[in-house]
């Protein structure tokens, strides 16, 4: 898939700018704060419906204006063109989206997952450094893009939790319902919660199992030393599970989930909030080194607690390249790869390694403050395969 063109109106610091992209490599450079990343952020609005930096729509409207407008033209592998238009009005706080001039009523079923995109930016480091919710979000978006059923389970889970929390609050705080009514109600919600939770966990574990082969390939491509990376899943219900080494059994997950949920009920009543379920689970990134002192038994050490900055970055880049590979296989097309200011974050040896592999990916967007990377790229790309865009104060210079 190729992003052919984007048109920005009153988006961030762009008043009006049309950019025609190269099918291969788009080299976007300029000083910080002039709007390089804004272009990639606009792309994230079209494909995910949200800013990949987590910014609110209202903050993306150009200062002094009322609405922004993003129009992007995608070309699929069969040369079909899709035009997506997003319009956000900060006065009415409304967002409207159209695809090929037809109004999109449900973003999640009509657009989400249709235009595979992989972002890598310094912001992505929260996947390895951040909270469990950052890791869940990374995998949730990734799994949802290839399974609408999973997205549906997530929505159902969120709905049940909202209802169960309201139920607990009504009972504990507002003293609604009799004790026996509450018992029957909470058991009804738990019954539903157990099934949906088990469905979510089951999907996550099976996804990790599949993801692992992509991940270990990329990880060993990136590391010079004899290191091994692995990802396991940690849940209230099942404890830490290495999806490669354990049997993933749906009924077993249900049983464990039920025990865990039943055990927390008294606490849940006291605190008037749900305390158990996959909304609290985590992915654990482990690194196994030949250095025996750092090894926690045989499974390697937890990246979160013991890794160096360089190790975090290697793990992240391996995760992101695996995201690319698995989406490519699932969608049958090359995702668009957006690299936002990542080269400066990496040391020279990793940069050369990554650049030498870039040719294997499809269309690439790279932002940087350093024009000299262009020289490295020249080794791998023909002149006509690279378009260079210099950005200054919300404009692409001619």
């Amino acid at each position, binding site marked *: 898939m190729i992003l052919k063109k984007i048109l920005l109106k009153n988006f961030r610091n762009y008043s009006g700018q049309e950019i025609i992209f190269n099918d291969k490599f788009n080299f976007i450079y300029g000083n910080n704060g002039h709007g390089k990343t804004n272009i990639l952020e606009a792309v994230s609005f079209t494909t995910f419906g949200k800013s990949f930096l987590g910014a609110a729509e209202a903050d993306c409207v150009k200062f002094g204006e009322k609405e922004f407008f993003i129009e992007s033209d995608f070309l699929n592998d069969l040369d079909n063109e899709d035009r997506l238009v997003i319009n956000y009005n900060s006065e009415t706080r409304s967002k409207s989206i159209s695809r090929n001039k037809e109004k999109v009523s449900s973003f999640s079923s009509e657009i989400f997952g249709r235009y595979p995109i992989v972002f890598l930016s310094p912001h992505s480091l929260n996947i390895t450094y951040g909270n469990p919710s950052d890791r869940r979000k990374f995998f949730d978006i990734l799994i949802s893009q290839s399974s609408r*059923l999973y997205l549906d389970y997530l929505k159902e889970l969120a709905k*049940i939790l909202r*209802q*169960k929390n309201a139920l607990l609050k*009504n009972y504990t705080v507002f003293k609604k319902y009799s004790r026996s*009514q509450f018992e029957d*109600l909470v058991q009804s919600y738990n019954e539903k919660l157990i099934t949906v939770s088990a469905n979510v966990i089951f999907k996550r574990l099976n996804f990790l199992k599949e993801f692992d082969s992509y991940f270990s390939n990329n990880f060993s491509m990136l590391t010079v030393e004899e290191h091994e990376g692995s990802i396991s899943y940690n849940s209230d219900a099942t404890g830490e599970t290495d999806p490669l080494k354990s049997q993933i059994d749906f009924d077993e997950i249900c049983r464990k989930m039920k025990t865990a949920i039943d055990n927390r009920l008294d606490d849940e009543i006291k605190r008037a909030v749900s305390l158990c379920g996959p909304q609290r689970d985590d992915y654990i990134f482990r690194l196994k080194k030949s250095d025996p002192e750092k090894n926690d038994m045989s499974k390697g050490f937890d990246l979160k607690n013991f890794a160096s900055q360089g190790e975090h970055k290697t793990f992240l880049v391996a995760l992101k390249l695996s995201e690319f590979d698995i989406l490519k296989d699932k969608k049958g097309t090359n995702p668009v790869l957006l690299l936002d200011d990542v080269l400066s974050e990496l040391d020279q040896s990793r940069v050369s390694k990554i650049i030498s592999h870039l040719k294997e990916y499809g269309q690439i967007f790279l932002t940087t403050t350093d024009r000299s990377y262009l020289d490295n790229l020249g080794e791998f790309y023909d002149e006509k395969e690279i378009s260079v865009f210099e950005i200054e104060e919300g404009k692409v210079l001619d």
Partner: protein
Amino acid sequence: MNNNTDVLENLIEEFSKLPQIGRKTAQRLAMHITRRPKEDVEKFSRALLEIKDKLRFCNVCCNITEYEICRICDSPKRSNNVICIVEEPQDVLAIEKTNEFKGKYHVLHGIISPLDGIGPNDIKISELLRRLGGESGSEVEELILALNPTVEGETTILYLSRLIKPLDIKITRIARGIPIGSDLEFADEVTLAKALEGRVVV
């Protein structure tokens, strides 16, 4: 402010209390009423009042009716063995249209949703339990739960099942998922998975 606009304003306000009527539509409706002949408006307001004066809940099934006991509950042709439980009176109309169901109904007038402050006491659950425990209750062999396949519908089904279980009545739910007349082939992954989840023994 003069008196006339107060009168108009009252009407606009009343219209905008109706579901899916915004302020603009309410204004349009009110202006329309001002232009209608007096007889028409009298007819309209009588019809409105009659709804409150004459309509009531059926003593047995809680459906809306003009009588103490609705036509369906009163009909000797309908079986007492099966009761179909629905959320709203319009669901009864929808099922009746199929001409396939020979049993009786129970209308809950809502669905349990703690988020909206709707608990078991806010819908017609105690009426259902009283009915099942009453003298015609012993004839009931099967309850069909025909609620919407939403989170609220499903948890209401689970809740009702818990209450009814000790009564030893068979409980079924309507199969959901594949719309009649559509091919399995064209159903999407979500619909298919749900249909499989809700499969019934043939």
